[in-house]
């Protein structure tokens, strides 16, 4: 038996969420035979890639690359987001080491970053570079027709409206959102109370600046409008698939949320108040595949600037991004004050000199 091909693994992993590129923005059928530009590791040899199979990285065996043999355990203490799914933990560092960039000059500044910035953050500047991925899903408009049609396709052929599911937004070349991440995600279950006044994060990356095992990681954030229980303030589980032809409770039979939620919650053994609404939700996917060639890595200034990629991350200082406005204001006031003072002094000297000449 040969090694599993990318097609084998991909037959599940590429189509998560009910279709190609729906769930992950970094795992889709374009990785069956990608160019190096899309993925330096899985890219074909002809395009300069390494033609890695999935199992080249997702394996329990030690990793050896020509000239680089690492005796350290693959995980290097960092936790893995790969749970039981694909076996062993793998990190970029398992093959590239903790100092993957040249030493000296600004390349060693890159190495200085790896304790706080995950490799993926710099090396996957955009995901869904080959085909669009689903970025949002609005359940609240399901059950209706749009322009009299039950299914509407967008310009790229992907459905933007389906009566059964609601409205979708697809995007390509998406700039990820960045969060501190220790490799674990916190999930909201139907038992956890939510705050419907804001966006509800159905899962949330754990991690912080102060945790030495956390890094800044890029995420695909999938947003949605999702049904919830307005009184009990919890998410609900609607009963979607009809069990049989007579199953009038199923949403995809009668398009009645009330019945579908009541039946779904009952099946799950949860309380339901009888009042539902739709709440804004977010769901994150770590972005770790589709590593781009080195030339496409982020520039310093994409992070080190006021409205750069990391503008939403707080609690730590980054040159070029952060400052204390009071110090800036005081400093520039001092500078301008000095300029004005010497200017006035100079003019007074000049005028006084002219007067003395006249006398």
């Amino acid at each position, binding site marked *: 038996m040969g090694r599993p091909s990318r097609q084998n693994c991909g037959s599940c992993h590429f189509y998560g969420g009910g279709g190609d590129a729906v769930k992950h923005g970094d795992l889709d059928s374009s990785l069956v035979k990608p160019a190096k530009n899309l993925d330096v590791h899985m890219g074909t040899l002809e395009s300069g890639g390494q033609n890695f199979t999935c199992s080249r990285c997702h394996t329990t065996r030690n990793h050896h690359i020509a000239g680089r043999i690492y005796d350290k355990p693959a995980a290097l203490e960092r936790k893995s987001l790969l749970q039981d799914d694909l076996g062993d933990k793998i990190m970029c560092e398992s093959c590239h080491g903790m100092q993957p960039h040249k030493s000296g000059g600004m390349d060693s500044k890159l190495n200085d970053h790896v*304790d706080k910035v995950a490799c993926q953050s710099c090396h996957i500047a955009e995901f869904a570079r080959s085909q669009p991925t689903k970025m949002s899903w609005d359940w609240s408009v399901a059950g209706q027709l749009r322009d009299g049609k039950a299914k509407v396709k967008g310009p790229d052929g992907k459905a933007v409206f389906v009566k059964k599911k609601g409205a979708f937004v697809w995007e390509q070349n998406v700039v990820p959102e960045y969060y501190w991440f220790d490799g674990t995600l916190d999930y909201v279950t139907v038992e956890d109370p939510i705050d419907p006044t804001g966006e509800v994060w159905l899962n949330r990356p754990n991690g912080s600046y102060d945790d030495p095992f956390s890094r800044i990681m890029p995420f695909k954030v999938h947003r949605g409008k999702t049904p919830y229980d307005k009184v009990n303030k919890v998410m609900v589980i609607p009963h979607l698939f009809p069990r049989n032809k007579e199953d009038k409770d199923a949403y995809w039979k009668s398009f009645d949320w009330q019945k579908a939620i009541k039946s779904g919650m009952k099946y799950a053994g949860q309380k339901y108040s009888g009042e539902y609404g739709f709440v804004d939700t977010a769901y994150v996917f770590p972005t770790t595949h589709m590593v781009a060639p080195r030339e496409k890595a982020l520039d310093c200034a994409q992070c080190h600037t006021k409205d750069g990629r990391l503008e939403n991350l707080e609690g730590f200082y980054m040159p070029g991004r952060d400052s204390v406005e009071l110090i800036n204001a005081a400093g520039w006031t001092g500078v301008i004050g000095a300029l004005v003072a010497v200017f006035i002094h100079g003019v007074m000297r000049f005028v006084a000199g002219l007067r003395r000449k006249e006398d």
Partner: protein
Amino acid sequence: MSEHKMKKIYLYSKFERFWHWVQSVLIILLLVTGFEVHGSFELLGFMKAVDIHNTIGLTWLILFVFIVFWMFVTHEYKQYIPTTKKLFEVAMYYSSGIFKGEPHPVQKSKNAKHNPMQRLTYLGLTAVLLPFQMVTGLLYWAYNDWADWGLGFLDLEVLALLHLIGGFAILIFLIVHVYMTTTGHTITAHIAAMFSGWEEVPEEETVPDWERKAERH
């Protein structure tokens, strides 16, 4: 002042002039790149600015060590020993006498290059502000080694802001300093002296004893 007869004296040695001008170029480049790294404007791009700032900062540090070494070897540091004598007169001169064409209350001489106000300013600059900027800069540069050096208690934000405040102070000094060079008997007299080493001073002026640098041994 122009009624006075002038004579030329050799005030600034080659090494002094050299370090003065090299230092001035380095400081100006550090200010430009430093404020770019801080995000005040965009000129070279963040990476170049960081790179140049680091390189020049380290170069300056080495030069500064030489300057201070030279000052102690030549006893020139005594030119910076502060005094309050005539300080008030000098302050009065720049705030009023200068407009009336009065002579400067303190004349430059080989053994007293700096008037009392300059002494205070340059001492503050050389002994406090510049070393402060070098220490904060060096620590900033070594940020990734703090843990290894046992400096883990430091905070990057506090350090960066201290370094920024120092940068503003140096910029303000620079503005006033450059302006003050125009207050000689001609606008460019002081600057010319810093190039040639020869400063024109009024003749027949005796330098009071207290102004004199202690004789070398």
